[in-house]
Every structure is written in structure tokens, then in C-alpha cells.
């Protein structure tokens, strides 16, 4: 079975919702849609207070190359344009809409029919992705149209689809592969057409046997798509690790997958691309896993962007009394939220509620130099050293030790027997080093 060669950890899977069919979350009474839900420049708001909007209408337009459109996820009236604390942990500008009915933009095909024929050309597909606001739905939220545009001088010979879903708890990609398998594979074919490649590999961790079987059967009808089971090991779904596991190419440090002639897209993204291209439906809802050990009805839901987390928790049986921490994303890389009114955004793959007993960190002790962090690091860095260097403010040395290579997967902090906050300090060092490097460029 394929896997990446170095490092990795085995956190308990806790896929409580793997068997829960995706349900539709009722449209809430009001939504707050942040205008920055992707990596890059925030979109520009093009609606005003008091405007009436339809579901699927553009409310903030893409600005610059690395940016994308934001659509209204509901129909109703724009209440205000204000700030709200979102998953970034800071106040961001958002469009607040009061819901009235659910009237969709006319051009959206709302039928259940599965459309196999791809009518659009490669360029049109990329344009449609930008118009529909498609971003990487695995969590990084990089605008997809940028990733699909192969710059001149570079080439791509294989498309990799990331179905590893190596984060514990999360099951949204798993359910899409099971329930929307055909649409997902059409989405992959569309991506292949956009990239002009003939080969696509789908990597799925072997704990999702049903999805692997289902897709292997379906894929026989699609040309060039193959399904590959992967060993269950975190971070199997990290871009560079997945490329190494599937096609044994090593992305050089500081470079992109395109430098080894490949592009990686996520399962959720492929499905969103299908809906955008075949059904003309922009990205205004996504599958979100709501889970937690003390939650009464954990599940997977289609959630409109901008819905407050509290509504989702309500649907899952209400906020348990002992909740100590709410995490958006997976437990290894997700961000913890400081209130329940945070809106669901394009990058929210799951909401996890941790009971109080699991939400507090243990007291950190002194490093015993056991080197477990080194053996856990999938990039073969030395986390203990990087932490010490940034703790002591020796950022130049940290840069030489390649602190910027760190992908913040959290394996080192996870494994550390002395519960040291390795990644906290590495993040600090990394952001400082990046800032320093930027200043150097400006000076030159």
C-alpha cells in the first residue's frame, strides 16, 4: 500500500460520522458572509445596505489575480456590512443578509439529473471556476482558477485528487465520494480537461474501504481515472506527502507541485467544480461535518456559507453542557473558535466540539531530547531545535534550519511526551522569518 516515506503519526481516527448520510441544513434566518474566505486579496463588496439579493448572486467581486467571487448563499435583504469574528480569529468585513424565502438565481440548474457531457472548453472551465468562486475546499482555500492555470514553461502530466482525509473526525469528503461518487468523478474529468491532462489518480486512505470500492467500480466508466488506497497515517493528505506517496516525486522545498508536473485538488473541490460547470451553481454551500463525543446527533450537512456555527450545533442536537472547545477543521490543523456565532466559510470542512476534559492542554515539561518529534516530522525537520531557536529569538538560525518548510501539520506537538508547545513557537518563528525575508526583498 502506498504511503509517504518519512515521519507521520497515528492519531485515533474517531470518524464518528462516517456512516451519516449528508443532510440539508435548513436555511437560517440570517447569514454573515465574510468577503475574505480564500487566500489572497479580499473581494470587493458590490451590494449596498437594503439591496435585495437572490441565492447564488455575486455580492463581492474578485479583485486581482489571487482572489475570487463571493456569492450570496440565501435570498433576502442586505441588513448591513459590518465586521464579524470569523475562523481567522479576527474581525473581518462581512455582508449580513436577512433571509426572505429561498429564491435562486435563474441560471442555476436545480434538477437532480446527472450531466455527463462536458460542453465547456478548458479556458471556459477556468473562467467558470473564477465566476463561481471555487476555492480549495480541503482547508487551504486557495482559489482554484489560479491552480488550474498552468503558466507557460510549466507542464502538468497528472492530476492528483486528495481523498485521504487524514484528519481525525472529519468525514465530509468520505460522504461525498460515497453519495455523490458519479458527480465527483465527472468533476475530476472536468479538472482534467481544464489542465489538459489524460491521467488522474485518486488517493484514499484505506480506512474508507466502502469509498474505495464504490469509486473503483464507478471509475471503470471514466477514462484515465484510477483509485489508489493509501496507508492510514497522518499527514497522508498533505499535498507534498500525497504526491510523494502516489507518484514518488519530491516537491523541492519552497516550490509548488507544478514544479514536479502535477496538481493536487481536493474531493470537495472536484464536486464543487462539477456543480459550477455542469449545473452553473456557484459555491455557496458545502458539506460540513459536525461532530464531537458528547454531541447527541453528529452528522454531515450541506450548509449554506455564512450560517452561524450555532445553527449547525442546534441541528446536531444542541450544544453539550461540557463543551470546552470548538474547533473549525480537523483536530490536528483546525482553528479553535472563540464564540459560536462564527460563520461557516468555504474552508470549513468540519466543526468539532471537544468536551472540557479534552480541551485543555497539559502542563509542559522540560525537553528530554527523546527525538520523537524528529521521527514524527514528515519533512525531516528538527522541531525541538526550531522551537528553541524561535523561543530565544534566533530567527536567522531558524531560517537556516528551514523553518519555513514546516507545513504546521502538528505531528511534533502531538507526539511530544513532555507536552511541549513545539508548533506554537515554530509558527511564531515561521511568521517572523517570512516577515524578515519580505523586508529583505523590499530593501533590495
Amino acid at each position: 500500500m502506498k504511503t509517504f516515506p518519512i515521519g507521520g503519526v497515528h492519531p485515533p481516527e474517531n470518524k464518528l460520522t462516517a456512516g451519516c448520510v449528508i443532510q440539508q441544513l435548513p436555511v437560517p434566518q440570517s447569514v454573515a458572509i465574510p468577503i475574505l474566505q480564500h487566500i489572497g486579496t479580499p473581494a470587493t463588496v458590490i451590494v449596498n445596505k437594503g439591496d435585495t439579493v437572490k441565492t447564488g448572486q455575486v455580492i463581492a467581486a474578485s479583485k486581482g489575480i489571487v482572489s475570487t467571487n463571493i456569492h450570496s448563499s440565501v435570498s433576502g435583504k442586505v441588513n448591513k456590512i459590518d465586521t464579524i469574528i470569523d475562523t481567522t480569529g479576527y474581525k473581518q468585513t462581512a455582508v449580513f443578509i436577512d433571509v426572505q424565502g429561498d429564491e435562486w438565481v435563474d441560471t442555476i440548474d436545480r434538477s437532480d439529473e446527472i450531466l455527463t457531457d462536458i460542453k465547456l472548453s478548458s479556458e471556459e472551465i477556468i473562467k467558470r471556476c473564477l465566476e463561481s468562486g471555487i476555492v480549495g475546499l480541503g482547508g487551504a482555500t486557495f482559489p482554484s482558477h489560479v491552480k488550474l492555470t498552468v503558466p507557460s514553461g510549466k507542464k502538468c502530466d497528472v492530476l492528483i485528487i486528495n481523498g485521504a482525509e487524514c484528519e481525525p473526525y472529519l468525514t465530509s469528503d468520505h460522504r461525498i465520494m460515497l453519495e455523490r461518487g458519479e458527480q465527483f468523478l465527472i468533476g475530476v474529468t472536468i479538472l482534467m480537461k481544464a489542465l489538459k491532462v489524460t491521467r488522474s489518480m485518486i488517493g484514499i486512505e484505506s480506512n474508507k474501504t466502502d469509498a474505495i470500492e464504490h469509486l473503483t467500480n464507478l471509475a471503470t466508466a471514466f477514462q484515465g481515472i484510477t483509485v489508489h488506497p493509501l496507508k492510514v497515517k497522518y499527514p497522508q493528505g498533505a499535498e507534498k506527502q500525497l504526491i510523494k506517496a502516489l507518484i514518488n516525486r519530491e516537491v523541492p522545498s519552497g516550490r509548488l507541485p507544478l514544479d514536479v508536473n502535477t496538481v493536487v485538488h481536493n474531493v470537495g473541490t472536484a464536486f464543487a467544480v462539477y456543480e459550477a460547470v455542469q449545473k452553473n451553481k456557484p459555491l455557496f454551500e458545502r458539506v460540513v461535518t459536525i461532530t464531537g463525543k458528547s454531541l447527541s446527533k453528529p452528522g454531515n450537512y450541506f450548509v449554506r456559507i455564512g450560517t452561524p456555527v450555532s445553527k449547525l450545533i442546534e441541528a446536531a442536537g444542541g450544544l453539550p453542557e461540557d463543551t470546552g472547545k470548538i474547533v473549525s477543521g480537523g483536530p490536528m490543523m483546525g482553528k479553535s473558535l472563540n464564540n459560536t456565532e462564527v460563520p461557516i466559510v468555504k474552508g470549513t470542512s468540519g466543526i468539532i466540539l471537544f468536551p472540557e476534559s479534552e480541551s485543555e492542554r497539559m502542563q509542559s515539561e522540560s525537553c528530554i531530547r527523546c527525538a520523537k518529534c524528529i521521527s514524527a516530522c514528515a519533512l525531516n525537520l528538527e522541531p525541538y531545535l526550531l522551537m528553541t531557536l524561535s523561543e530565544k529569538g534566533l530567527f536567522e538560525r531558524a531560517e537556516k534550519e528551514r523553518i519555513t518548510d514546516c507545513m504546521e501539520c502538528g505531528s511534533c506537538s502531538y507526539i511530544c511526551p513532555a507536552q511541549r508547545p513545539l508548533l506554537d513557537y515554530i509558527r511564531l518563528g515561521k511568521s517572523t522569518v517570512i516577515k524578515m525575508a519580505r523586508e529583505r526583498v523590499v530593501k533590495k
Partner: protein
Amino acid sequence: MSNLLNVSLSPHTHGKETTRKLMFGVVIALLPALFTSIYYFGIGAIIVTATSIISCVLFEYLIQRFIFKKPISITDGSALVTGLLLAFNVPSNIPVFIIVIGSFISIAVAKMTFGGLGNNPFNPALVGRVFMLISFPRQMTTWPIPAGLSTKYIDAVTGATPLAIIKEGLKNGESISQLMTQIPTPVQMFLGKMGGSLGEVAAIALLIGFVYLLVKKIITWHIPVSVIGSMAIFTTILWLINPEKNADPMFHILAGGVLLGAIFMATDYVTSPMNPKAMIIYGCGIGILTVIIRVWGAYPEGVSFAILLMNAFVPLMNAYIKPKRFGEEVKNG
């Protein structure tokens, strides 16, 4: 929900591995060797081990309580491991006061002066052992003969270790083939029927501990295998050059504290290198230095000195021997 939400950086989950679990894992791995030594050396082994453990933990407690004035961390088990290893490195008939002095040197001088667990450059148990060896050479080099659950402590019947027999014999001009008749057979040595420090004699018990440590992923194979491997290669070369002057590799590995040193002392987290490449160099250094001390040095046994000497190189190795990073570009001229 009555309280405020907790906010912290990811990861939001932890592997449940703790320093304490690792330390007690080492203790469990040492138990087979402890039981065999009790079987061979009887009451002496129990007295020595108990004294050593109690005094090590006590010194750590006293220093943390009255000098550091910081939270007490004796429950992490590191002092327990030091105490156990120190006991394993001395003869079973050693007087109690010497062990207490040795424990004091181990904990107070070798460990706490550097700031406690995680900061000491040299293996505490070995520093204590070497201190005792140099300060009390007579008591430290008279070894009781295994007598099967003996009730004798100080007055146990003593004899020389195989290594000492070879060393003395070669000095007096005897050949290896003559000397081999005076020492236990390899099978006896494998089972531990020979004179020696109380924990080092039974190879079989130490190997069981090694397997446990590997299975529990407490240590990796790199250091023990490279220590034993490099010793085997080096002694084979010497043996092939002159079998009448040099003992065979099998003897070198089974005699003395090689296995105890390679499996438990050299792999001490704090004082060993952090990445596999450096671990192998470190292990080979220990193996080669041990043979050099045994063959050409004044002492019959050299594992302790070899490990301590290599400990001194660990910071250097950590700084200059780096693992190959993922995605590191190979410079093509």
C-alpha cells in the same frame, strides 16, 4: 455551556505519550535483568538496588525542594531509572555508604547542577559509577560469584570477571587459548553465570528488555545495533590478526557491560544524539572506544568511559549532523 471557550493553537489533540510513561517503560524493560540478578546474587542485589533507588529519588526531591524551590518532579520516573541503572553498574557486595555517595554524585553533580532532567550532558548513572570506580577501586572491582539466591551480602564469595581474567592473563604472558579454559563458556555467559556488576551479567534478560523497548517504540534500533555491530567488526579484525593475543568477538560482546551499556545507557535520551545518522556515528564511536580501552587501556572494562566520552560529542553531532530534509535540493555542481 457555562464557561468560556478555550482557544489554543492546533493541534487540539495529544498522543497521550508522557515522559512518565517512557521512563516507566524503561523500568519495565529493566525488570528481567533485575530478577536474574536477584536470582544470581540474592540479598546483595536487593539491598544495593533498593538503596540506590531510594537515595537517588531522595536526593532529587531534596534538591528540587530546597535548592531549586520549583515544583517537585520526582514522579516522572527519571530519578528511578538513574537509581536502577546505577545499581546495575556496581557489584552486589558494595557497602551501602558507597552507593549513597554514588547516588549523590549521579543526581546532584551530574544531573541537577545542569538544571535537571533534559539538561545534563553526561549520563548521570555513569558519572556516578565512574566516580565510585575511581574513588573506591577495591570495592568496585571485587565481584561476587553467582551463587543462586544467596543470603550473603558483604561477605559473599568473590572472584574475577572474565574480562579481568583475560587482561591479567595477557599481562602475565598467557595465551588466549590457555585463558579460555579459565572463563565461563559462551552459553554460561549468555545466561549470566559469571562475575560482574549486578545488572550486566545476563545477556538474555537484557535482550528481552531490548525487544520490549523496541516494541514499545521507546528507543530505536540505531544506537544498540551500531554499538554492538562496530564492536563485533573491530574485535573480529583484531582476532583474525592474532587469535592468541585477542579474544573472539563473541566473548567481547557477552562479557562485561556491553549489552547493558548499548541498550540502556547509550540510549539515554538526554545524552544521546537526536537524529538517526548521528545516532549511528555515536554508537560506532562507543563500540570502537570500548574495544580500544579493553585491549590497550589500563582498565579491563571500558563501556562506561566510552559512553561518557561520546556523550561529550553529542552537542557537536546535533549541531553538525543533520537529517536530509524532505524536498532538499541536491546541488548538481
